[in-house]
């Protein structure tokens, strides 16, 4: 199915390759490079490319391209999902999925790829099983390895492959038994000029960190499970129980895993935590413009908005920005034309404001007013959808575990779209000046 895999970085170097059937020459990647040249942004390269003898299916993860070469017709979702699984495994093993990390651990990477695919077919992809076959590198272990000569390769048959539950190894033992769940929600929203919601959706994920002895059977129930629309679970969750009782019942994998992903879609009203008042305008005459942005809290459920950050993609003609911020500081990244305003904590008593003059390239045509704003934020201890875990019960084992739930809300793709396309800028520079003098 999957013939070969090439790992390619953003500048277009192939730094790792692996072939499962026969060796395919590098030159097959030229089709990819050609498409990459053509694309405005390297991220715009389409995921499936057709070449005379192969298909190239590419997945983009953290500045890396995972390019697989396929010779026959395949189900595309299958290959894409698998490539993401490979990237997930690297992330899981090395903490991040980047070129330098993969190069440092190249031997482990080869071993992993060897175990994950045989003859182009997925073999072992469950992280628990893999971790017993090939132990992940840790700093302590690499020190120990150099001293004692042991290595990262397990020399016993993974018990997980023999246990009846493929995602959990047998005979787990801990002195401290604990189960923690993080409910993380991201708001994807597009708001228009007047602040009304064009589109809003919440993407949530429950990350679990479970360290429990033996074979525990957990049941997690919610106060308001009806909120959840589209859910997708870790394979351990019993789907029948969810359909009938709306509770999550499962034998957890050992360690960290993603228990479920969910959406709270546009059917339910989504709380928008902040509002933005902005005016960015460019004068018809003279190479400058004016910017005035204020941010205030809207529906925050009584919590503070933290790590607030505003990103504005400026029109190409903007050369520099001379602004004053009442809170936080701003930077203007000239090559990418991005203005970043890092605000930090939002104080409802004193709203942060950014104001000043933008200077334009002389002679350039007047750019469009009010470019879109992207907002980043974080609210601790609340899930903005209102989702709450009511209880966690454990069956099958005698001891009492520590339990904990944490909630975080973040902004995902959170965008204020303010482009008013054809409002001609009626007031010329002089009229404004005139108003200015008459008002004062």
């Amino acid at each position, binding site marked *: 199915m999957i013939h070969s895999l090439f790992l390619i970085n953003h500048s277009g170097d192939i730094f790792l390759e692996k072939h499962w059937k026969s060796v395919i020459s590098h030159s097959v990647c030229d089709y990819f490079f050609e498409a990459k040249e053509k694309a405005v942004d390297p991220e715009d390269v389409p995921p499936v490319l057709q070449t005379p003898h192969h298909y190239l299916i590419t997945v983009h993860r953290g500045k890396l391209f995972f390019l697989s070469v396929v010779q026959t017709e395949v189900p595309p979702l*299958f290959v894409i999902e698998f490539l993401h699984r490979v990237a997930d495994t690297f992330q899981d093993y090395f903490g991040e999925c980047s070129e330098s990390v993969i190069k440092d651990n190249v031997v482990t990477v080869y071993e992993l790829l060897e175990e994950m695919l045989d003859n182009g077919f997925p073999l072992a992809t469950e992280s628990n099983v893999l971790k017993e076959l090939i132990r992940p590198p840790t700093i302590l272990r690499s020190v120990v390895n150099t001293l004692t000569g042991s290595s990262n390769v397990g020399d016993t048959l993974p018990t997980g492959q023999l246990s009846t539950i493929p995602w959990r190894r047998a005979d787990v033992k801990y002195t401290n038994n604990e189960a923690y769940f993080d409910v993380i929600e991201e708001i994807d929203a597009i708001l228009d000029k007047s602040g009304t919601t064009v589109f809003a959706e919440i993407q949530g994920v429950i990350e679990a960190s479970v360290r429990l002895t033996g074979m525990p059977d957990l049941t997690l129930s919610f106060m308001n499970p009806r909120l959840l629309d589209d859910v997708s679970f870790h394979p351990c969750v019993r789907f029948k129980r969810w359909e009938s009782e709306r509770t999550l019942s499962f034998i957890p994998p050992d360690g960290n895993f993603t228990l479920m992903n969910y959406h709270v879609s546009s059917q339910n009203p989504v709380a928008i935590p902040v509002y933005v008042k902005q005016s960015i305008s460019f004068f018809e005459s003279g190479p400058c413009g004016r910017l005035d942005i204020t941010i205030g809290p809207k529906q925050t459920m009584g919590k503070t908005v933290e790590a607030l950050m505003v990103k504005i993609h400026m029109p190409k003609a903007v050369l520099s920005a001379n602004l004053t911020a009442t809170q936080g500081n701003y930077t203007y990244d000239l090559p990418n034309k991005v203005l970043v305003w890092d605000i930090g904590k939002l104080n409802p008593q004193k709203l942060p404001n950014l104001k000043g003059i933008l200077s334009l390239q002389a002679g350039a045509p007047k750019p469009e007013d009010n470019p879109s704003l992207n907002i980043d934020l974080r609210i601790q201890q609340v899930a903005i959808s209102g989702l709450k875990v009511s209880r966690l019960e454990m069956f099958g084992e005698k001891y009492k575990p520590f339990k904990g739930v944490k909630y975080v809300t973040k902004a995902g793709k959170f965008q204020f779209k303010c482009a008013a396309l054809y409002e001609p800028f009626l007031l010329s520079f002089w009229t404004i000046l005139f108003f200015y003098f008459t008002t004062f």
Partner: protein
Amino acid sequence: MPYLGSEDAVRELRRALSNPNVQSDQLRYRNTVLKAIRAMSQGVDVSDLFSEMVKACATVDIVQKKLVYVFLCSYATLNPELSLLVINTLRKDCQDPNPMVRSLALRNMTNLRLPSLVEYVEQPLAAGLRDRAACVRRVAVLGWAKLHNLQPDAEIDAAVVNELYGLLRDPDPVVMVNCLRALEEILKKEGGVAINKPITHHLLNRLKESDVWGQCEVLRILQRYHPQSEDELFDILSLLDASLVSPHPPVMAATLGLFLGLCSGLPAVSLAALERVRGPLLAACGSTSRETRFTALCHIQLLLRSLPGLMGAHYKRFFCGYAEPAYIKQRKMQVLVELVNDENVAMLLDELKGYCTDVNPETAQAAISAIGRIGRSYSDRCLEILTGLLGLKQEHITSAVVQTMCDLVWVCPQCSDTVCSALEGCEEMLQDSQGRQALLWLLAAYGERVSSAPYTLEGFIDRVRSEASLGVKMELLTTTMRLFLCRPSETQDMLGRLLHYCIEEEMDMCVRDQALLYYRLLHCGIEETHKVLHGQRSDPSLGVLIGRPAEPINQWAYSFNTLEPLRQAGFHQVGWGASVHSHFQISPEMFNRVQVRALAGPLKDIHRVVPKPLLCYLGCVLRFVQSALEHVFIQDVSVHCCIHLSLNPD
């Protein structure tokens, strides 16, 4: 690319590997092997170490074995003779009490990819099929497929095939799935693994045990099964119901594919299945992986062909985010165009309007032509937006708008007034040949209503010497001719200049011949010219477009869950938002237009109509035409061209 000084490094490594002191110390030995592998992954050619590595293979240390195998598998093809030495060690390992060693040895034995070694590998592989440990059987099963790939022409061993069929009932689900995969490869010539009723039911019953990948594989292979009775069919369908709403997109897609295959005779059941996957598909559209999102979108497009109302309520899900890659945005727009109705049209157009100023010109163009498509049903609103866009004075936007207007006018002639008034003054903003061609076509069709048309044309004719695009020159000739017919006093002089230039100085045969043709046509008198040149300005048969009729599912079911809907060509194949100005993008409806336009301006579309190799042949036809010169005959020829077109729809 070998690094500088790599020879020294290799020599150093070889010395270390053959040093008895190193060999006796397991730790040092292993680290030296590790160094060699590291060098290999950095691109240093370490194939010279082959014989040392073969020796290093004979060790009890599993880790070292693994490392050595990685080395051997990459260099075996370079050293077929030396590889024979490895086989002995590998065969010994196949007897090892540790199942992990056995599976490792077996896997690497088959990964050496040397046809000369096949005879030594067969026996351990056969033993592997009967091994106690599941992990060895998994490897052995796939090993047979690899052997077959090494010698695709060799005779298939019936005993092995039988044994593999037997292993379909193996207690380990991975062995079962691997058997399917192996049989599929080995029996490729006979059409893959044979699926009968007992096998089908066995596979379906054990579907739940296998992992996501296995389930997809089984579901894909089951597509070949035809249930014997309707009862059996419905039993299978109810077994599959849970996987149809599986949270894993690949499983969901594979199940739906199987559903559509099984229910090809029962359209009502298929439609119900499509309704059922709406939720999971929409969830996949919101997945964090952009590639999954893209694939899901492409498949939604397929579904919409049969169930146009499927996503109506969820149109907001297809609004584009700012940071989404261009390929997703373009697909989303194609979907949005399908979802337009009276209630959401204002909102959709507002949204699409926002995309028209996207940083990526291709996305902007796609948005503009999407608005043009909507314009077929809601022409007033869309024209207002399109004329507004011209005010932005951006080159790529103006070009896309003019092309879109050109397409729109062809379908909705009632828009022509607005379009004509919008055309004034946009020729300065048009830089690319497609945009200029579209402008010329519009001037030809509605020249009498655009007051500045002769001035625009004059500008074109003055610059014709430096014009590079063949298409623009051809279009210019026809436009000038047609404008001459309706506004002779203003254009006579420039037509003369243009014809003179094209006949006397132009190097391109196509342009020259067409100019000659027009010249002689004019000799036949103005009446005749009028008859030939005045074709239709629009296609009344298309009229106002009110939704597309739903296609039967069977039209696309075969391509569901394959790469076909994802292909680049799919963009044009769908025909929505595609521009008409290149000869690779022919959808049936555009085809009509090219035909009629070819009639309107005889032979002007030859360059787009006929593939290159035919050009010389056509040249002959043209010469013949010139001597004959009877307009009926000319029309015949142009019809002729259309026939070429339909023969080579590319």
